[in-house]
């Protein structure tokens, strides 16, 4: 049986002048799934999800969200979708509670009917005691939690988050992750973008790595790492690293050079470590392959600005 798709994009593209921000991506997110979009700055993640939640009009391609054609049914879609934008769009001139009920009112939910829901949501994001606080007195982490609570006011079926934890301290980040996992187990479909590999690994059933407006690879994070990188990575950083690497010839390892470091990607590092030891090389680091290796291998190591 084919699972129901909450997001279905085909050949979706968008240019700003000469810049192809999103260059024909295809994306399928199933109901109840958490899908993460990874990519360096400027890869087109934000433009892609802004098209999906209707803030940017696509130049081409097909897009259906929650079973509706995005161009035709945009308002109906927004009634069932919550959006947590990258930038803070809270109403700075209103208190925490007023932010919540004014937003509920945008959805046509009356003040009386929204009251219990607001209490429940402020509890959920641990902002109950900030009820009457002005927005300018909230920390960055509190604002982000409030944005999440606000996006849930109308019990959406799909939640879209653009870098939900960028700039948060570890405590706040873990709280957000925990809440998102709870929402997911409650059946909510989640689409998010992130720079944090740990975030993607912790939350996402599937990820897509984007660069230059295209999706390079897609799949479950652990599987992708295994297939594209391997099980283990050995980093050589010593002065004799090239000589040490030569000792590993014949093992069929993939070698990557970046700055002062050699990266060796392998199924198992055991044999390589043996050889390095007998060659007298001690300056190396053996560790499990991670999503970060996948990301850097796919999108390159140079800075993106």
């Amino acid at each position, binding site marked *: 049986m084919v699972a129901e798709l909450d997001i279905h994009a085909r050949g979706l593209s968008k240019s*700003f002048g000469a810049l192809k921000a999103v260059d024909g991506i295809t994306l399928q997110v199933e109901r109840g799934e958490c899908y993460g979009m990874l990519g360096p700055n400027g890869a087109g993640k934000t433009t892609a999800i802004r098209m999906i*939640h*209707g*803030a*940017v*009009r696509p130049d081409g391609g097909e897009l259906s969200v929650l079973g509706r054609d995005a161009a035709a049914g*945009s*308002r*109906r879609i*927004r*009634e069932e979708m919550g*959006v947590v*934008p990258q*930038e*803070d*769009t*809270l*109403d*700075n*001139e*209103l208190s925490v509670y*007023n932010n919540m009920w*004014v*937003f509920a*009112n*945008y*959805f*046509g939910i009356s003040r009386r009917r929204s009251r219990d829901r607001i209490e429940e949501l402020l509890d959920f994001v641990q902002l109950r005691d900030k009820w009457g606080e002005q927005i300018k007195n909230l920390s960055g982490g509190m604002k982000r939690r409030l944005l999440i609570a606000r*996006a849930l006011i109308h019990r959406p079926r799909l939640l879209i988050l653009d870098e939900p934890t960028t700039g948060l301290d570890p405590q706040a980040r873990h709280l957000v992750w925990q809440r998102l996992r709870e929402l997911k187990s409650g059946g909510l479909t989640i689409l998010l973008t992130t720079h944090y590999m740990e975030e993607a690994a912790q939350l996402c059933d599937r990820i897509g790595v984007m660069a230059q407006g295209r999706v390079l690879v897609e799949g479950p994070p652990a599987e992708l790492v295994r297939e594209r990188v391997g099980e283990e990575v050995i980093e050589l950083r010593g002065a004799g690293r090239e000589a040490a690497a030569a000792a590993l010839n014949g093992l069929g390892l993939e070698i990557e050079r970046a700055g002062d470091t050699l990266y060796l990607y392998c199924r198992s590092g055991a044999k390589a470590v043996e050889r390095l030891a007998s060659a007298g090389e001690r300056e190396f680091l053996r560790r499990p392959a991670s999503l970060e290796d996948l990301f850097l291998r796919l999108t390159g190591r140079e800075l993106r600005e």
Partner: protein
Amino acid sequence: MIAAGMVPSRRALRVWLRHLVQYRSFYVAEWAGNFGEHVLYLLAFGYGLGRLVPSLNGISYAQFIGPGLVVSIAMWTSTFESTYGAYNRMRVQKTYEAMMSAPLSLGDIVLGDLLWCGTRAIIGATLMMIVLSLFGLIGSLWWALSVLPIIFLVGLMFGSLGLVSAGLAPSFSFFSFHFSLVVMPMFFFAETLFPLRGLPDGLRLFSQTLPLTHAVKIVRGLIIFGRVDDFLFHLFILAGSTLVFMACATISVSRRMMS
């Protein structure tokens, strides 16, 4: 280019309500400030300057200028709300963006802002009329109340003009053009502060082309005499230009918000 999202609906009232909620937090200070300001204006212009002005068709200068001040306050209030206020919501605080992630269209947001401009115009003009009545410058209370729909139209019109600029503005400083090219000429030459009779023909013609002139004629007629010559003509110009400006405002804001 008229897109579906530009057509407003009843949901505009949800936007209007947001503005009202926000207004509740500062209206007391604002009313107190405005009240004092209005009294100062009236004393300075009506009685200070007015001593130098002979009676105009049997009414004092203070009587003459009162309705002019009522209309110009409606203009100033709705202009501030739709230029600095709307730009702040559009570009700085991203309030529009938040509204657009809810099921509100751009048309709803623009209309909600304009209804709010009309509301603020009514509040400002009412305060001014209270001051006028304290000085005995209102002919009849009922006729004074009858100007409120006209004031609301003035609020919609200057709200629309302000939103056109807010959509075009690259930064806050852009609005100094709006004030020197749109607001100030009307403030001075819409027969708000002095009658046009006896002025050069060119200036009188210019004044007739200003939509505010027609609002001033209606409001002055109603407040002082309880009747207006050529009422329907003035109303037609006022309502017609307001509708055109509202369409321009929607297009300007859409161009800014939809990429």
